[in-house]
Each structure stands twice: as structure tokens, then as C-alpha cells.
């Protein structure tokens, strides 16, 4: 009896072991989140799993730093996940799975228009690589309660950076708030202000971080750190090109004006609560006349090393469906990149009046995006430019370099980075 049981068990185990890989199709989805995105996608993808028996989508929630630093190394080594939510949209293009053979090109082009170009490798590339799930735009959050307490009028339409700096200083002084202003420690975040000071970013000779407009902004930015207008903790409190936002200072009520972006709305709503009133205002204007934020965000892409390209494409196509996309956008409180969803309007679930106002405020800023800002987001080498900006501007802020030295170094670093990439 016993040998019979043993034989049967061994045979069953053997058959299962051989059959298991053929039956189970596991897709690994690397995801990082500012709010609840990964949680929402995990929930929505259970419907995809139900519609595709045998498919198991594993959502690996990782820190944002892992997406920035580990994912590219994994992909280069051929050990990447099947799909991921990325922010270096064009920079990782060489690893992307082209979804075009597997999806309805007409629907995608009609629904996502120019956003598809952000994921492409350059001119002549007509592939469909990514689903832009989270459209963001940079812009300012203002502590309205502090303005009210200080009895200072908020600068109105067309206000400049100088106007806001003066007002924020006045408010901080009157209310004893430690910091008047902060801009997230990110090359992407300072691009909007730099454009408003006249930075072209893409000059006649190609990408640049050293034209007069960019230099003028860096000079002003460093000066604001020296006179205490900007919170030193954000840019001087870190090294390298590490990202650091100023949201915690804002949430703690220690900051009058924070230049961050639309992805912070959920966090603000959740963390600030009734502590104080906050609102989103238009991106300030600069001497060059522009008053632009920089669009961006994240998207879901598949990778060409996947063993299940059709399944990965089907999954992303499922998420691109107008109804599913609208649901995800509403639940994650993001701005839609799907033109159909945007024109129909998003019914955000249970958001406060303040958050709804902020979402509308950011959405209203999208048509005013400067062409340089749109180009910058789509430029495949923007990640290098972001990092160089953060490192060198930080050095100027802490006094290791003068502004001129920092700008000269930025140009050298950019040239070296471009040469290395080629």
C-alpha cells in the first residue's frame, strides 16, 4: 500500500511540476506610489486576472528610488520585471515593449495623442510604448490660513516670482513661520521657474543648461537661499542628485509657499486635513513672460524582455480602456492624460472641496504649458539634465561653487553625459 501511495504522490508531484510553468502565467508589475496608485491598480487588475484565467499579476510595490536607480540596472542586465510604472518616460525607451502590434493604434492615438511621443525613442519612432496613467503638472501650493492670519493679500493673476517671494516673506515674518518658500529638490521642479526666467532648455545647438535665462534663474534661486526666502533644508539638506520634496514642511505649517506638483494633492488632503486651508495657485511668471509649470507624471510600460509580450500588451490595453482609465484616475485623484476621459470630466470620489479646487487649478494650467516645458518632459536625456541641475545648483547654494562656476559645470556635465550616452 505504502509504495503505491508513494508512487502516486511522486507521479502527481512530477506532473504538476512539469505542468505548472505551462499553466501559470505570472506577470510581475514593479510599482511605486505617491499615494494609492499601486493599491488601486492591484485592485483593478483582479478584474483582468478574472477575465484571463491562469494569469497572475504580482504587483511589487517598491520605493520610488528603486524605480529610478534599480530598475534601469535590472533592465540593462536583462532581469527586469514584465511591466513597471516609470517616470523616466523616454529615457528607458530602449527596453520598452512596442504595444503597437497588439493594440488598436487608432484608439490609442485618438485617446493619448501627443503623450505617446514622451515614451518614444526620437524622431521617426511611431511605436506605442506606454500608458500615461498619471498626468502631472508642477505648480505652487499656498498656505491660505497663514496669508489670512498675516493680513497679506495673495498676489493675483499674472503675479511674478518676485511678487510671490515678497508676499511669502511678509507672511512668514508676520506669523513667525520658519520658511517663506520652497521648491522641491528636483531638476524637473525648477525647470518651470527657469523657463519663466527665459531658459530655453533646448537651444539652437541642442539641450542646454547655461543660457542667460537659466543662469538668471539660478542666480535668483541661490540669492533667495542666502537671504532666507527659500528653505535651505530642502536643497542643502541632501547630497548628490537625491530627490527631496518640501511637502513635509508645508504640511507642518512651517512653509508659506511650496512649488511642487499636482501629485501632492492626495497627500495634502490626507495630511493637512482641517489643520489649515491650502490652495493651488497659478505658476508665477518670470522676466521672460512665461508662467509655465512642467508637465510630467508616470506611465505603465511593458519591457521587451518579457516572456509574455501579448499578455503584457493586453494588460496595459485593459488599463487604457476609457472606463477603466476613468475609474483609476478618479480613485487615484490624478489628472487624466486620456483625452476622452479629460473631456468627459472626472468624477473624483469623495474628495474635499479644497482638493477638487486644486485638481481643477492644475488642470486649468495644462493649456498654458510652455512648449519648452513640453519638450523637456519628452526629451529622452532629461533625467541627466535633472540630476546635473540638482547637484550643481546645490553646490552653488552651499557655497562650494559660485553661480558662474555652477553653470559652467552644468554645461560640461551635460556635454559629458551626452557623449557618454552616445
Amino acid at each position: 500500500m505504502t509504495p503505491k501511495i508513494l508512487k502516486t504522490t511522486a507521479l502527481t508531484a512530477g506532473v504538476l511540476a512539469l505542468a505548472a510553468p505551462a499553466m501559470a502565467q505570472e506577470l510581475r508589475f514593479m510599482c511605486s506610489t505617491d499615494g494609492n496608485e499601486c493599491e488601486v491598480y492591484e485592485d483593478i487588475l483582479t478584474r483582468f486576472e478574472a477575465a484571463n484565467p491562469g494569469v497572475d499579476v504580482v504587483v511589487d510595490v517598491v520605493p520610488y528610488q528603486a524605480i529610478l536607480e534599480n530598475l534601469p540596472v535590472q533592465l540593462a542586465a536583462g532581469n527586469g520585471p514584465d511591466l513597471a510604472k516609470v517616470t523616466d518616460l523616454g529615457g528607458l525607451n530602449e527596453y520598452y515593449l512596442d504595444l503597437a502590434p497588439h493594440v488598436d493604434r487608432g484608439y490609442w492615438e485618438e485617446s493619448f495623442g501627443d503623450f505617446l511621443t514622451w515614451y518614444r525613442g526620437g524622431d521617426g519612432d511611431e511605436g506605442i510604448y506606454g500608458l500615461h496613467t498619471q498626468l502631472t503638472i508642477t505648480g505652487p501650493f499656498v498656505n491660505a490660513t497663514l496669508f489670512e492670519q498675516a493680513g497679506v493679500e495673495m498676489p493675483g493673476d499674472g503675479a511674478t516670482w518676485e511678487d510671490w517671494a515678497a508676499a511669502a516673506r511678509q507672511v512668514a515674518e508676520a506669523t513667525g513661520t520658519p520658511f517663506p518658500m520652497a521648491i522641491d529638490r528636483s531638476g524637473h521642479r525648477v525647470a518651470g521657474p527657469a523657463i519663466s526666467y527665459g531658459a530655453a532648455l533646448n537651444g539652437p545647438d541642442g539641450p542646454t543648461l547655461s543660457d542667460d535665462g537659466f543662469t538668471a534663474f539660478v542666480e535668483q534661486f541661490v540669492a533667495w537661499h542666502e537671504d532666507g526666502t527659500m528653505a535651505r533644508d530642502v536643497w542643502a539638506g541632501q547630497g548628490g542628485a537625491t530627490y527631496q520634496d518640501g511637502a513635509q514642511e508645508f504640511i507642518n505649517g512651517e512653509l508659506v509657499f511650496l512649488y511642487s506638483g499636482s501629485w501632492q494633492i492626495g497627500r495634502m488632503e490626507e495630511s493637512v486635513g482641517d489643520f489649515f486651508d491650502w490652495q493651488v495657485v497659478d505658476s508665477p511668471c518670470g522676466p521672460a513672460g512665461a508662467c509655465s509649470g512642467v508637465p510630467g507624471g508616470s506611465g505603465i510600460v511593458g519591457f521587451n524582455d518579457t516572456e509574455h509580450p501579448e499578455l503584457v500588451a493586453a494588460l496595459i490595453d485593459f488599463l487604457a480602456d476609457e472606463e477603466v482609465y476613468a475609474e483609476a484616475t478618479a480613485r487615484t485623484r490624478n489628472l487624466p492624460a486620456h483625452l476622452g476621459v479629460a473631456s468627459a470630466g472626472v468624477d473624483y470620489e469623495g474628495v474635499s472641496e479644497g482638493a477638487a479646487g486644486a485638481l481643477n487649478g492644475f488642470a486649468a494650467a495644462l493649456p498654458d504649458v510652455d512648449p519648452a516645458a513640453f519638450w523637456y518632459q519628452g526629451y529622452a536625456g532629461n533625467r541627466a539634465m535633472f540630476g546635473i541641475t540638482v547637484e550643481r545648483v546645490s553646490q552653488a547654494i552651499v557655497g562650494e561653487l559660485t553661480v558662474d562656476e555652477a553653470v559652467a559645470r552644468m554645461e560640461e556635465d551635460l556635454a559629458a553625459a551626452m557623449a557618454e550616452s552616445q
Partner: protein
Amino acid sequence: MRIIEIPMLALQRLFGVHKLAWVFLLPNLLLFAFFAFLPIFLNVFYATSGGDNILLDDRPYVGAQNFNNLVDCSNYLDPNTCREDKFWRAIWNTLWFVTLQVGIMVGFSLLTAIILNRDIRARGFFRSVFFFPVLLSPVVVALIWKWVLQREGILNAFLDSTGIGGINWLVDAEWAFAWTVFLTVWAHMGFYTLILLAGLQAIPRDVYEAATMDRASPWRVFRKITLPLLAPTMLVVLILALIRGVQTFDEVYAFTGGGPGTATTFIIQYIYEEGFAGAPRVWGMAAAASILVAVVLVILTLIQLWVNRRNVDG
């Protein structure tokens, strides 16, 4: 005949007695070659190739260009005159850090070991207290001190309460560097104290008894007996601390991120950022810098081996 003797005798017949040692060493040698020699070979390959591709086939040979870029400087004392200024800032930061950290740490470790070697009350407890930070994860150490030192941390709360007023410790370059030295001394001192304590306890008691009978002063006993007899242990501690100092990365990366600016960026962080965190990933430069660091570490290790051998030989 025991069962183990069957394969042994077969191997002996096959390879002969003299070659049998190599047969036993082979598995270990293969592992060593795979995990040590292969990475070294790959590192040299990356250091002499360019581009941002990780796959070897896609990397063009550039010879010594990466090394030349690293050492291209008008004045080595002024990183601003160097092509790779961040590399030289990291080198100088590391040199300053190692000099200060090792000096302070060995000094305090010696002092602590001498105190703990005396017949004091609760000696075992204090030995544990000083050794405890060694058991903590580097990231935990960094976070604990970050909480203490941040703008609204415990230290500033205390200073505010006494009316002195807080300082933004980690945003000021000099303070951040000083606290980095302090943090690493605090975290590692216990280990070196333990080694020195063992060295102190190995000194024969009768030498001290003879000195006492000769009415030698405590200072004279320390200078003429303790220090000379502890010197070999001190040297080992010094070299171990130097090697560890050059390798410093994790605690400081979690503590200050290398900032403000590059004030606490040390050489290992430079390598990490060039190769893994930056865009594009400059593997060649990172590999070249790591080879230069490896040369320094090999020299320090050889000194340690030489010292050890001299101690053993008496």
C-alpha cells in the same frame, strides 16, 4: 575499511598523493575565482571601456581614458580645477574624514579600554553599553542620529529649552561633517575598544606589580609599560580602522546623503552615484575610481599583514 576511505583511495590512485591537496582545494578555488577574480576582471574591463551600456559587447574600448579623466587636474588641492571635481572633492573629504575619524576613534577606544580594564563597578554593564552600537544596523544608526540632529530634533529642542537656541546641524557643511565623524566614531568605537581591551588584558600583571614596587607614577607606567606592550594591538586597530574609514558609505549616505552639497560625500558614494544612481550611468568612471580605491585598500591590507606577521614572529 570505512566508507569514506573508498572514494579517498580512488582519488589518491587517480591523482597521486601530492596532487590530492589540489583536488580538495578545487571547489573552493572555483568559488573564489567566480566570486572574486571574475568581478576583478570585469571591473578592469569596465574601467577601460566607455558608454552607458552594461553589456560587455556594447562597450567600446577606451584604454586609460577614464583614469586620465579622473586624474586630470591643474591643482590637486583645489577640486574646482579638476575635470572630475566631484571625484577630488570625495577624495579630500575621505582623507580628512579618515584622518579625523580614525585618530579620534582610536584615542577614545584606548581611553575607554583602559577605564574598562580597571576594577570599576558594573564593568560588565559598561562593556556592553560601549559595544551595543556595533550591533546596530548602519541605517538604524544614521536614522537615530538624524532624528536627534534634525532642525526639530531632540538636541535642538533641548538647546531651545535652555535658551541657547538650536542650530540646523545637517544643513551647515562644517557641522554636518563634524557630526558625520562623531556618528561613525560612536557606531564603531565599541569594536576597537574590545580589541584593545583584549590587548590590555594580555599584558602580564607582574610587570605592573614590579612597576608599583619601584614606585613608578601611573603616567610613567602608562608610557613605559602599557603603550609599548599594547603597540602591536594598536597598530592592528589603526589599520583596521583606516580600511573601514576609507570604505565608509552606508551610515553617511543614510545620514546626510553626502550633503550639504558635497560636504560629506566620500569616495564610495562617488563610485555609487557614478555607476548606479546618476543618469547616464557612467560604469567606466565608477570602475576606474573603484580600482584606485582598491589600490589604496590593498596597500593598507598589506601593511596589516606585515604587522601581523611581525607580531607572530615576535
